[in-house]
């Protein structure tokens, strides 16, 4: 496989500042994104997915910050560590929207209510590619057509409130892909949408990712979405990566008890009627200090050592790794 276009190595994110207690809300995150492929980041709400996504754009705002690790973007100009750039500086702005673009969860609130969608798509085009107002508008219309909006010439002149939720999310996608970025981050892109629209949006994202050769980071809490759309999967729990695998390997052989729990709470794709078992309990809040594995409190296989130390991620096979004391490979790596 080629070198990844985007790589987060050992990234930790802290909350808190000089005057309040520092709290680590994500630690030791490693992930790579490759051209034309989709990596899914899965976990319940509150597990650190969204801050990870924001850190990839260097969009964390105080009191959140990346405290460790590197976030490297590879372009034709060579690799660049985003984590080291000034978040509001010129270099970072030249990357945002141009190299890395992001789609947000709620299209109802993510579009500026007082500008037309054409204007909002044009804004990035004019800023990054130096297009004139007229050229940018023409491109915006093309992009609206590309994301499957009917009558794009007319729609470009509409305001967000005149569009349905699915349409708005298509507009968000058009804004994101406008400058042909190499990395696309989609943070729960379908959560706020009707079920019937969700599949269309995901198909569109997948199709665009392959056609435009973008590397996609798909953040979701829905394993069904993962199965349909991802190539690789990372499962996160309370700020830790607990399992990492190709999508086939993960679904055939889920290793971490948390992943298994998530799967047991998912209805089977073939429509069989089975008993669904939810994971008992909730994700512990970030304000709670935790020693050892954060899942220990909800885990059916909990052992004494789980409460002592968080295990590191170890390979079960070349494309499958897990962080759980249940596995000899993990235990041996420590010994």
């Amino acid at each position, binding site marked *: 496989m080629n070198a990844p276009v985007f790589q987060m190595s050992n990234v930790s994110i802290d909350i808190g500042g000089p005057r309040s207690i520092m709290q680590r809300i994500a630690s030791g995150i490693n992930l790579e994104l490759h051209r034309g492929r989709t990596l899914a980041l899965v976990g319940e709400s509150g597990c650190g997915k969204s801050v990870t996504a924001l850190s990839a754009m260097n969009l964390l705002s105080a009191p959140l910050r990346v405290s460790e690790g590197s976030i490297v973007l590879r372009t034709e100009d060579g690799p660049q560590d985003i984590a080291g750039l000034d978040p509001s500086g010129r270099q970072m702005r030249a990357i945002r*929207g141009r190299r890395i673009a992001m789609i*947000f969860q709620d299209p109802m609130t*993510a579009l500026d209510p007082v500008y037309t969608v054409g204007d909002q798509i044009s804004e990035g085009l004019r800023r990054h590619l130096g297009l004139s107002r007229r050229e940018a508008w023409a491109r915006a219309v093309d992009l609206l057509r590309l994301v499957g909006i009917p009558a794009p010439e007319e729609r470009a002149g509409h305001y967000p409130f005149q569009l349905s939720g699915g349409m708005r999310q298509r507009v968000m996608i058009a804004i994101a892909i406008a400058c042909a970025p190499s990395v696309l981050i989609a943070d729960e892109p379908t959560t706020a949408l009707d079920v019937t629209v969700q599949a269309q949006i995901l198909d569109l994202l997948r199709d665009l990712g392959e056609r435009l050769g973008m590397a996609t980071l798909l953040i979701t809490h829905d394993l069904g979405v993962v199965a349909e759309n991802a190539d690789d999967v990372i499962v996160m729990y309370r700020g830790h990566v607990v399992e990492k695998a190709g999508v086939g390997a993960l679904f055939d052989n889920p290793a971490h008890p948390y992943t298994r729990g998530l799967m047991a709470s998912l209805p089977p794709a073939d429509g069989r009627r089975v008993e669904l078992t939810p994971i008992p309990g909730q994700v512990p809040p970030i304000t709670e200090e935790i020693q050892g594995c954060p899942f220990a409190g909800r885990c059916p296989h909990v052992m004494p050592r789980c409460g002592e130390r968080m295990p590191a991620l170890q390979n079960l096979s070349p494309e499958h790794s897990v962080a759980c004391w249940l596995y000899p490979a993990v235990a041996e790596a420590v010994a």
Partner: protein
Amino acid sequence: MLTYLARRSLLVIVTIAGVMTILFGLQKLAGDPTIFLLPPEATEAERLSLLHRLGLDRPLIVQYLSFLANAATGDIGLSWKYNEPALPIVLEAFPATILLATSALAFSILTAVPLGILAALRRDTWVDTFASGIAVIGQAMPVYWSGLLFILLFSTTLRWLPSMGGEGWLALILPAVTLGLNTMARIMRITRSSMLDVLGQDYVRTVRAKGIPEYAILFKHGLRNAAVPIVALIGLQLGGLLGGAVLIETVFSWPGVGRLAVNAVYSRDFPLVQSVALIVTVTFSLVNMFVDVLCATLNPQIRLN
């Protein structure tokens, strides 16, 4: 939009008619004006002839209707004190008040909006504390008192600025700043809070993710979205400014309708008071209508429905 305009205009007309009715009622409440208008030694015949001349011997309802009808044509009657049509006297003094009020408004907007934005951006820093301090004081200071203090400091002590109206452009500074202080405090508060509100919105994050520089985010998206409550407040403040002018014009001897009204009240010159009230109300109502329409235009959701 057209029906909205029509309904809004109708409201303006109803409001003005209502105000005129109140003023008519007050005039009747004030009792027989001839007591003030005639020398004490006047005879009963003189009194009756004056009543007749003023049209005050007619039945009340006739007086009321002719008052409204005349007011609609801009005829409020003769000023009892100057013995000439009251409305033109007011109209002559009106530009001075407009000049004072618009200068005060300009001063307050030009200082309050930047300071409010800065306070929102530098939240919880000394800038924010400074701005909220100014807002607290500006809102609680009686206008005429700040006027007196400014006169004491800038005219009497430092001798930098004139304290009386009619001495050129410099004479405008103190009254305008004094009158604008309260409005400035209010505009600043709302600018700060609506900027904070807007800058926390999801769409601002979207814009930031597009790689747009902060200044463009601030002005193109932030201020544009925060504008509706700010503009709405500015419209409402104009009433306060015109009211404040009554006091400020007295303090600074500014030759506007406010001072005219105060003097007219002292001399019980009712037609003159009514004329001032009419002019001020019409102005305020029209400006408010304009501001409402402007707010509707700023918000595409209202504009297109």
